[in-house]
Structures are given as C-alpha cells and as structure tokens.
C-alpha cells in the first residue's frame, strides 16, 4: 500500500473493519439467494452514507469531504474483498466524477448533496453492445424546442435498477464510431419514455438494460459541452477504471488470502499441500504479480489526485485496468484449481470470486481493450 496519510489510514482501517465485521461473504450469498431487486445489500448502502464514503469525491461546498481518488480506492478495495454489493462506485465515484468534470456549479449544487446523503443514485449508462466501446454510441439526442429528445438502448448498465438518475452519452452529431458529436445528459430514472429491465448476470449484481423511447429533457439536462463530450466522458471513464482497479485489487487480494490459507491447512498425501514446491512457486508468482498490479492501481488513482495530464491519467488507467484484470483473472482461476473439487461447489465461496472477476474484467473495457488503448496512447 502506498505511503498513506493519517486520515487515509483511518478510513482504510475503518472500511476494512466494517467489511470484516458487518459484511462477510455470507451477506453477499444471502443477497444472491434472495435475488433482491437492484441487488443492493440491504443495510450496506445506509452504512456507507453514514460513514461518509458517498462524499469522498464531492466538494465540501456540496457536503462532501473531497478527499480524492486514492482515498476512495482504499474504501473500494475493502469492499471488493467480501464482494459487498452497492452503488457506491457507480454513483459516488463515476456519477460524482461526471458531475464535477462536466456539470455546471448549479448542476453540482442540485445533484451532489443528494449523492452524498444517498437519496440520489447516479449511474453512467454508456455501453450499447456487449463490449465496451464508447465511440460506438448510437443513441441519439435530437434538439427539440429548448431541449432534446433521446432515443436508443443502453445495455448492461451498472446498478441500473437502483439508479435514480442516469448519465447518458448520446449522439447529437456524427455517426457511431466517431468520437466527435457526443453529448452527456442527466436523465431521471422516472422520466417519461424511460424503461428498464433487470438482468441476471453471473456476479448477481444489479445490471439493467435501459430503453430511451423518445425521452424529452430540458436544456438544463446537458452536462458540459454539446457535441464535445468525448474527452470528458473518457476522463470520467478513466476515473471509473482506476476506481474499479482498486476494487479488483480487493477481490483478488481476498481470493489470494483464501488460496494461501487453504495451502496452509489442506492435507493430501500426508502433507500440507502448501509444502508442494510446484504449488508454492505458483503462489510466489501470484504474490509477485499482486505487488506489480497494486502499484499500477495506486499509480492510476494517484495520477488523478495529482492532476496529471489527461493523457497520463489515460495511460495509467489503462495500465491499471489491464494489469489488475490479468492479476485477478490469474488468482481467481488458481483459487478454484488449488482448492480442487471443493472449490467447484456452490457451497464454497471460491466460485463467487471467479464469477465476479469476469464481470469486473468486462466492465469499462477488458484487458484486450486497454492493452490496445495503451499501445495507441504510446503511439505504436
């Protein structure tokens, strides 16, 4: 872990204790088994609001603490460990970032206090196909009177059932595939013409497909510049990717802890299996990989806090998402393999980590997407 301030250490320790004591994986299991609509773990959300996590990225003027992305990452890492399901990342990181980067002072004042007190839940509805590709946005926003009419489909929207408002990139000009011509809109979930359908994915989180069937919005729904949203959308997504990498480090970290614990206790052939050198070396390589991946995740968060140029943040975010994604993939697969048969059973938690790993990998661009982006950013 990076060299932390006293305040950061306090927040991390609090988050880790809360997750450990209040939200063991049994709570995730219970939520999954109940198939709760929106897939928010009951009392988790209120607890997060109370601890002030929803305000970490919100300016003090709007009721937040403005502590920055590395701090937010510490909380997300703790939550990732026991798979705590909530709209924290979608609303208080991605949504709040969009408002701060693109919203006017009035828009921020109208929305951010609600994000902090948990009454507003934001979600960025960006993907339209099964694979992440913001430039391919086809959803249209046609000018009508003072405002716009939105038409299109947004797929696999994170926390789509629990969101009270969506941030919707839509095309005011240009054609799918072009970066120019996009505009961001803030759309209430209960707007006329908006409908949503919950989806059941392997990780049991609250995804939804959102249909915009001629949804009329006013001019004040536009976040930032008309036609020129791509750079700010990309910046918001890079913050999302960096934050997600921190959550993924938590998920991978817990999986690795479970794996090492098992190696220390499971006996086969009259020996604890961790004493088999082939397994020990694989564990050592995973640990080395973990250290490298952690550095990438932290560097991405820090680059945002340090106001690094957008291109640097983009490089770091893609590096983190790809490198941590590979790490999580490795560890979650080995978690099953080293557990053997027991790891295959639904009774055991290992499968949750494998499933969640793949969903996290796919979100906001998978490893292949970010390796390609990294190469393009470096210019080869």
């Amino acid at each position: 872990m990076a060299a932390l301030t006293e305040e950061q250490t306090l927040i991390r320790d609090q988050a880790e204790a809360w997750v450990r004591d209040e939200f063991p994986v049994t709570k995730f299991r219970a939520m999954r088994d109940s198939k709760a609509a929106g897939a928010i773990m009951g009392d988790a959300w209120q607890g997060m609001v109370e601890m002030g996590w929803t305000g970490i990225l919100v300016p003090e003027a709007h009721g937040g603490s403005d502590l920055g992305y590395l701090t937010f990452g510490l909380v997300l890492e703790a939550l990732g460990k026991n798979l705590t399901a909530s709209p924290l990342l979608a609303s208080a990181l991605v949504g709040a970032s969009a408002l701060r980067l693109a919203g006017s002072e009035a828009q921020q004042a109208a929305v951010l206090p609600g994000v902090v007190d948990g009454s507003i839940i934001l979600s960025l509805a960006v993907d339209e196909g099964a694979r992440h590709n913001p430039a391919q946005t086809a959803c249209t926003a046609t000018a009508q009177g003072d405002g716009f009419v939105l038409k299109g489909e947004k797929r696999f929207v994170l926390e789509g059932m629990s969101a009270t408002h969506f941030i919707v990139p839509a095309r005011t000009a240009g054609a799918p595939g072009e970066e120019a011509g996009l505009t961001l809109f803030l759309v209430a979930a209960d707007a006329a013409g908006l409908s949503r359908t919950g989806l059941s994915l392997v990780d049991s989180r609250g995804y939804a497909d959102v249909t915009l069937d001629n949804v009329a919005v006013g001019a004040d729904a536009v976040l930032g510049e008309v036609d020129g949203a791509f750079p700010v959308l990309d910046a918001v997504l890079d913050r999302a990717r960096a934050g997600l990498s921190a959550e993924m480090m938590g998920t991978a970290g817990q999986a690795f802890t479970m794996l090492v614990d098992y190696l220390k206790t499971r006996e086969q052939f009259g020996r604890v299996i961790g004493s088999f050198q082939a397994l020990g070396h694989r564990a050592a390589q995973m640990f080395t990989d973990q250290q490298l991946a952690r550095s990438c995740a932290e560097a991405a968060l820090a680059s945002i806090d340090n106001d690094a140029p957008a291109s640097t943040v983009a490089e770091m975010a893609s590096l983190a998402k790809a490198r941590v994604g590979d790490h999580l993939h490795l560890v979650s697969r080995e978690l099953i393999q080293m557990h053997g048969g027991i790891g295959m059973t639904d009774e055991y938690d290992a499968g949750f980590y494998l499933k969640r790993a793949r969903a996290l990998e796919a979100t906001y661009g998978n490893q292949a997407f970010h390796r390609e982006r990294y190469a393009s950013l470096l210019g080869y």
Partner: protein
Amino acid sequence: MSTATSAAGDAFRESVRSWVEANFPPELKDQPASMEGAGDGDLAQALERWRDALAGQGWGAPTWPKAYGGAGLTPAEARVISQEIGRAGGYNPIPLMAGMGVTMVGPTLLEYGTDEQKEKHLPGIASGKIRWCLGLSEPNAGSDLAGLATKAEDKGDHFALNGQKIWTSGADISQWCGALVRTEPQAPKRDGLSFVLLPMDQPGVETRPIKLISGASPFCETYFNDARAEKSDLLGPLNKGWSVVKRLLQHERASQTSARGPGAGGKSESLYAIAKRYAGETADGKLEDADLRARLTRHLMDAEAHRLTAERIAAEAKGNVEVSAAASIMKNSATSVSQTRSELMIELMGYRGLGWEGEAFRQEELDTVREWLWGKAISIYGGSAEVQNNIISKNILGLPETTQKG
C-alpha cells in the same frame, strides 16, 4: 500415413451401414446426447428401442466377448460402428446409459473379475440397463486416494461399509456402485484398500446431489451406513484395491483424452466466426480486436496440435486401444485446450458471456457460461493437472521420486 482399407473392412462397414439404416429410429436423428437420455415420452421410447437393438448386436460394448454381452470385435471395427451410427445422425446411447459401466467398470471387470462376476455384471452394462457409479473420492481425500477413510468391516459373507464418498457421478440414478474402501485399517495407507461392488438400492446407502458453481450437477455425496457389499462382489484380491483402481483410472484418462465438451474438435473450427460476430471485423476481414485475435490464433494452433496428436497416437498404436503412457499428456492438453476455448468464448462475448439466466440472453449464451464454469472441473477430476504432471515427470521422464507418495 495412407489408410489402406482392406476389402474385408469395406464389407464390414457395408454390413454395419445397412443394419444401422434398418434399425436407427429416424426420430432420433440429430437429437442431442444427454446423460439422462431423451426426457420426452416418444423420444424416450425410441431411445429404448434403439438401445435394445444395439444391445442385441452386442454393440453396446462391441469389443467385449460375446459371452458377456459384447460382440467380440476389434477396436477398429468398433470405430467403424461409431462412425456409421454418426453418419446416420445418431449416437450410441449405451455408454451414457451405463454411467461408468462401459468406459471404466467393464474394462476393469474384464481384467480383474472372476468368471462369475463377469457373467453377473457385464451383460447389464453392455445392454445399457444397469447404470454404474463409482465411490472413490472422499471429502478429505481428493487427489490423494490413499488417504481414504471409508471402512468395510468383514461380516462373514459380506462387508459392512461406513463412511462418506463425494463426486459419485450419477449416484442418485445408478443401480450399482464400485467403491474403494478400507478393509485393513492397520496397513499403510494404500495397502489396506479393497474394491467392492454394491447395489445402490438398499437402506444403507443415501445420496445427496451436489450443486456446483455452474448450477445443478450429476455429482452426489454418497453416505454408507452399514451398507452391504457381498463378499462375492469383491473385485480383485482383498487389500489390493489400489491396483484395481489405478487401472480403473487409466481407463478413465484414456476415455477423457478426446477433448470433448466445450473444448476442441468440430466446434473450435468456427470460433473465429463467433468472435467476428461479437467483436466485429476490420475492412480487410480481420478480427477487430487485435489482442484477442493474437491469443485466438495461439489457441487454434494448440487445439489443432492436440487433434493431430490424438490422431498420431492412434496411428502409432495401430488401432489398439492400449491404455498408454500418453494418457496423462493428452489429459492435460485436452484440459488446457478446452478451458482456454471457454475463456476466449466468455471474453469475446463480453457481457453477453456473463448471463446467468433470463430472457435477455440466448440459450447458447447461457450454455456457454455454464460450460465455462463447469469446465473448471476438467483440470481437477480424473487426476488433477498437478497429478498428471507428477505422473509424467516420474513415470515417463523417470525423474526421481519427489517427496510426494502419489
């Protein structure tokens, strides 16, 4: 390399072909194989007719002696039968209906069984009417079978079994079970084990299906509470069950090397077409996702190399279904090809490759997800990848014994 087919071979193929034409129920054409057979009423009846017709020929286990329900054919002739049935759009349901009977229990019985045992058990397997399961693993003995704890106490004419087995595939629908049990508690770990056969329909046997990460499964936990196995159903010598099971597992590996399931073979030939559909293609027809494309190519090469190796091993063995040293290599290779393919499928499908249930997803998308998850077991069961590597390094390469005793 050329396969000169003899005149006699051609005649045999022709006779098989006309028999299949006459006997294969047309309603079964291109029906998917499933472990439970066709669920539907009409299809189930057709399947039973088909099973009985095959059994009448001794083709449920064509290489077994006629006396035991087989047809006394060569492995090459058996392959002709498979090919001709496949040509007609069908499959041989007996190996599926018999559970572990045709592939594992039968061959082991032929080798270790007494004449009475063969007469008693083999015809039921060869006809597909008796389904067998195997009680090998236990919760505290996964890769390490020598650590088994289930006891079999000598009660004069029978053994009384007490303990718990796990991963007994199909135990809840099987009629018989072959179980590895401890008959001599004082002996060193693998010396006091025996292999016994017992009927499942008795008060001392209880089964509980196991739910897996991929959902429902054919696997069970099986509990023995004074379960009864006749002395006459002891397979192989007392306290020599380890040798019997080693052989049994070799037959298992041999049957697993074909990389069926979500792995190699026919399906993987169009993997790049699926990839193009989900990930798009460039103006010059290349897969849009260059990074994925590079890994896809490595996978397709590995899959082809695996297929060619299976062919080569078959050619070298000149048609004998010898349980060879190659089994461990092929098991690991098949596993790797199969699991990599599943991972690539999940990746290229994006979110559509992460659906658990619901109408938002096509059935084949949901199937792909379940296959991906289920496929994680391939490197665990039937001797884990690690166990196979131990076997290769020790038995094939002749590297000195590691500290491990497996």
